[in-house]
């Protein structure tokens, strides 16, 4: 066949049919578009979060190719410069830097976290580029002047004056800050003021943290943070050929608790840290894609089934199998192209919203980088296009094979496909059972590099396995329904059930689509509910203190906000306070992975706390043992590091690496990065740090009812110049639940999308079924059926599909929830979650889905009622 003839045939045979069935074509395109758009939006959001981090690392590190950073905590003693200085002889340049979170108090009395970057204004120009705002506008980098001063801003003497700073352009613009303005910062429990010397442009360092930063001379920054002699990092520029030599020398000379890494290494570490969260989020987008695939499969299968006689006629007229296949392939490509392209456009529009939804989680749990607008990369569009088209082709392949296998003789037999499916229902059942068995085996396998590959595979196989069982279940359930439904719904009940049974191939696909959509919803609902219940229980049981005290800076979100250790003694003196327990936490680099090192007063915790341990031992029993080089570790840390009771964990300290015996593993849901908690008295000796990040305050039993009075008394004691915050356990609990709900907000959005696509699939199937049943409807009209009766048949079909989808969805949802909770979540984050089924939510959603499924039958029901009997018979 010549290309021109093929195109003519394609136009007449395929395009006209697509145009004739506009609604179904539109539904299919919408299904693909939805899947692709969600995938693209989430992947852009994920990559934006990381690229913002990378961008900031690059801008802050500048030309540095090595950096010295602490293994524990965020700062270290700058005296190590003595060990680095000799390296200048081999061409190494170095610059100390402070890079810390501070809380900015805005004019509207709200607070926000910004970055305080302290640099050596004299040494640093070798490392970074600087622009002030005016220079930026003229696109002329101010850069570095010959005398080593950073541009106009730096040449302005005021930047070296005490308590002065530069601010990023974005921050200045948002908060209307100008040269000469005053900015107020909460640092630990103090409020510090700085005068703005100038506003930085968006290029170079001024563009780090999306321009939401404050830059000060390092001495000023140390003054602000009150950590004289401490720095966050020392950046180094090494001649490329000397890099390895420098690294070796530094390792030999620097204290053991310092790490020598590269900016790229830091980015890699950030990627590792957020990987589980990202992958899990991305995996969720596959829900929408998978249901979209079902929609394509559904549409193409139904098209092929409906047009079998016509395909047979074409074959009889001499059209080759390959031509038939090519025509349907082109149809799938066309639908895929339309759906994918519109999905990409919509996905780009959705990306900012998705970023907003995930950025809070990134900022809460991983790193504080502003993420205002999405930053898509061209390859992401290409990937979304490839995913959309690829999955369309995979989904369309079985119906394409079906179309090409139609023989002229077979096509004239109306029910050949149905009888074939009936013959295949047993093999399908066995295949389904085998896949479910294989899923079970896979679910027992460990994660690969911390990623639950086998868990996801098991989920996928469970979905395919359950979908394979659907034809068998329907073939046995529908005849039963056709016997009993007439009692409730008259002849329409029987007609609905028998018609569905007569078109089992279409019915199975529609029911399976809905089943998968509902299963996703059910499983995610169970996971979230279980998680929420677990966290609530954990807070209720573990958080025994009555009040929690922390610095204002920490309360406003700066994790490193501290209080002096002496505050604990002050608190203990307040009447009504029975005990106060100090807790300090610092970032910990352990084997290249981020975690937290914390220290607690175990003697107080033993008497008053109620930490829950995996071993089942009591809080008192474990805490009493926690003296010397013994530690308790959180469950996520134990899972990530594969540690158990009695193992040891090595932590870097200024006095060299120290090993701690794992006394026990405690349940913890505060972070998936994990905690190692050691006795605070030992911590003080090892790290020379007496500060605490929070204080748990236990009241005398008779003071508990007067909680607010005691809180006021403590606040009064620290009124003078100290900015502290005291929350009750109840307030802490509400805050934790608020953060929890925000973290899972996007998950709710995703499962709503999955169910929407599934319902589109049901509507699609019902349209096809109604068109297919036109002849039957016409006969019924001849026999005296009223329009309302025909509508009722279609609505009952929708209700049956909705019910079957719901029941199947519950079953599959249960299986998926087990995999999510006990395999995927456990291997990704290491959390033990207590299984809990949100019965109310599931019942309400089930009813909603059923009602929506019936509502999705309304347009096809109208179509059925419009059946013109003579015209259909004339078609015969």
């Amino acid at each position, binding site marked *: 066949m010549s290309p021109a003839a093929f195109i003519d045939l394609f136009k007449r045979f395929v395009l006209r049919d697509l145009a004739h069935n506009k609604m179904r074509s539109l539904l299919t395109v919408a299904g693909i578009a939805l899947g692709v758009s969600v995938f693209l939006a989430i992947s852009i959001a994920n990559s934006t979060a990381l690229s913002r981090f990378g961008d900031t690392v690059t801008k802050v590190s500048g030309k540095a190719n090595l950096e010295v950073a602490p293994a524990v905590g965020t700062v270290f003693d700058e005296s190590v410069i003595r060990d680095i200085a000799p390296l200048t002889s081999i061409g190494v340049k170095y610059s100390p830097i402070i890079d810390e979170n501070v809380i900015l108090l805005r004019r509207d009395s709200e607070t926000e976290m910004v970055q305080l970057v302290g640099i050596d204004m004299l040494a640093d120009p070798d490392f970074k580029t600087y622009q002030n705002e005016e220079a930026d506008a003229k696109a002329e980098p101010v850069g570095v002047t010959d005398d080593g001063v950073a541009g106009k801003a730096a040449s302005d003497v005021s930047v070296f004056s005490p308590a002065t700073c530069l601010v990023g352009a974005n921050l200045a613009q948002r908060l209307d800050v100008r040269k000469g303005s005053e900015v107020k910062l909460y640092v630990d429990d103090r409020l510090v003021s700085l005068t703005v010397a100038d506003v930085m442009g968006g290029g170079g360092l001024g563009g780090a943290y999306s321009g939401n930063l404050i830059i000060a001379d390092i001495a000023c920054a140390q003054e602000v943070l009150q950590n004289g002699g401490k720095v966050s990092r020392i950046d180094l520029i090494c001649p490329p050929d000397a890099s390895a030599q420098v690294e070796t020398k530094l390792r030999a000379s620097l204290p053991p608790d310092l790490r020598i890494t590269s900016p790229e290494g830091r980015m890699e570490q950030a990627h590792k840290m957020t990987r589980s969260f990202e992958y899990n989020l991305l995996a969720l987008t596959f829900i929408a894609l998978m249901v979209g695939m079902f929609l394509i499969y559904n549409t193409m299968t139904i098209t092929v089934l409906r047009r079998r006689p016509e395909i047979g006629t074409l074959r009889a007229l001499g059209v080759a199998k390959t031509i038939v296949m090519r025509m349907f392939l082109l149809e799938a490509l066309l639908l895929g192209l339309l759906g994918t392209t519109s999905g990409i456009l919509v996905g780009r529009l959705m990306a900012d919203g998705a970023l907003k939804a995930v950025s809070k989680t990134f900022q809460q749990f991983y790193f504080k980088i502003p993420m205002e607008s999405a930053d898509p990369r061209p390859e992401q569009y290409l990937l979304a296009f490839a995913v959309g088209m690829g999955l369309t082709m995979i989904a369309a392949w079985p119906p394409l094979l079906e179309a090409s296998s139609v023989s002229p003789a077979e096509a004239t037999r109306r029910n050949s496909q149905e009888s074939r499916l009936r013959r295949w229902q047993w093999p399908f059942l066995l295949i389904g059972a085998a896949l479910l068995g294989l899923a079970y085996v896979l679910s027992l396998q460990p994660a690969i590099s911390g990623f639950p590959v086998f868990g996801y595979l098991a989920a996928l196989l469970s979905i395919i396995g359950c979908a394979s069982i659907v034809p068998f279940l329907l073939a046995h359930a529908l005849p039963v329904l056709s016997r009993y439904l007439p009692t409730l719904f008259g002849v329409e009940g029987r007609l609905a059930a028998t018609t569905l049974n007569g078109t089992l191939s279409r019915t199975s696909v529609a029911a399976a689509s809905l089943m998968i959509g509902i299963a996703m919803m059910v499983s995610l609902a169970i996971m979230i509910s279980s998680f929420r219940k677990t966290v609530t229980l954990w807070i209720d049981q573990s958080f025994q203190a009555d009040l929690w005290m922390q610095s204002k800076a920490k309360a406003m979100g700066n994790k490193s906000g501290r209080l002096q250790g002496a505050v604990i003694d002050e608190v203990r003196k307040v009447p009504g306070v029975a005990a106060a327990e100090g807790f300090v936490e610092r970032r910990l680099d352990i084997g290249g992975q981020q975690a937290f090192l914390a220290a607690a007063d175990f003697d107080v915790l033993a008497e008053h706390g109620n930490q829950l341990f995996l071993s089942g031992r009591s809080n008192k029993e474990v805490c009493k043992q926690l003296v010397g080089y013994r530690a308790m570790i959180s469950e996520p840390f134990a899972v990530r590091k594969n540690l158990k009771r009695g193992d040891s964990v090595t932590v870097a300290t200024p006095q060299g690496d120290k090993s701690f015996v794992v006394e026990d593993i405690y349940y913890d849901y505060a972070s998936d990065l994990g905690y190692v908690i050691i006795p605070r008295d030992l911590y003080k000796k090892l790290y020379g740090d007496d500060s605490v990040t929070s204080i748990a305050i236990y009241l005398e039993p008779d003071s508990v009812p007067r909680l607010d009075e005691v809180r006021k008394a403590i606040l009064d004691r620290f009124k003078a110049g100290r900015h502290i915050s005291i929350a009750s356990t109840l307030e802490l609990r509400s805050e934790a639940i608020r953060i929890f709900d925000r973290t899972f907000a996007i998950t709710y959005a995703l499962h709503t999308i999955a169910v929407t696509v599934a319902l589109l699939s049901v509507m699609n199937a019902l349209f096809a079924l109604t068109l297919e049943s036109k002849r039957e409807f016409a*006969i019924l009209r001849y026999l005296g059926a009223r329009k309302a009766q025909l509508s009722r048949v279609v609505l009952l079909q929708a209700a049956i599909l909705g019910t079957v989808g719901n029941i199947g969805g519950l079953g599959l949802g249960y299986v998926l929830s087990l995999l999510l909770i006990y395999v995927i979540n456990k291997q990704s984050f290491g959390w033990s979650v207590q299984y809990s089924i949100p019965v109310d939510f599931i019942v309400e959603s089930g009813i909603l889905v059923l009602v929506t499924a019936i509502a999705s039958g309304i347009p096809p029901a109208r179509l059925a009622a419009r059946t013109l009997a003579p015209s259909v018979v004339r078609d015969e």
Partner: protein
Amino acid sequence: MPLLQLVGVSKTYGEHDVHALKQVDLTVEDGQLVALMGASGCGKSTLLNVIAGLDDIQEGDIAFDGISLKGLSDEKITAVRGEKIGFIFQFFNLLSTLTVLENVTLPLELLGRQSHKQRMAAAREMLHLVGLEDRDQFFPAQLSGGQMQRVAIARALIHKPKLVIADEPTGNLDSDNGAMVLALLSKLNKELGQTLIMATHSAEAAAIADRVIQMKDGRIVT
């Protein structure tokens, strides 16, 4: 009073105003067996459809069993059709997903008439009349063409309609089965006294009729 009376009925189709029926006048008495003959496209099927109220008309009036169909709502025409008219088609038009028994009971079920037990008894009686009582649990695909048409006849008659409309009832059958179906229709017409209007090309079918009407170009010519 005649069972059916058409006066000056005209029917046109589509945008190009194809005249399917032109000023048709027809009177059919109760209990008559009428054969409607003519070449393909002469308007036989259209005439049957307008009699059943399935197609609307542009001119004239149709009175069936004393009721004028003109101006009746679709709901009312459907009720008249369901209660008083039975259909037999050339291609049988049984519902493939229903058993023989279920196909036969369908008109009664759609009417919501009688109890389940009574419907079953009536259907079995009809199947006995057409000689298929032993096939009641079969599906249409398991029957021969002649058997399917006999099921269709049983379905057309079960609710005891005043008028049975048959469109080429033997058109899709071989001569033996065709003869058997015609004999059955004739017998039932005599025994049950129902009026039968049958569109046909077959001389054998016309032979059993009380009256033969010839159509040409949308008009009754004899």
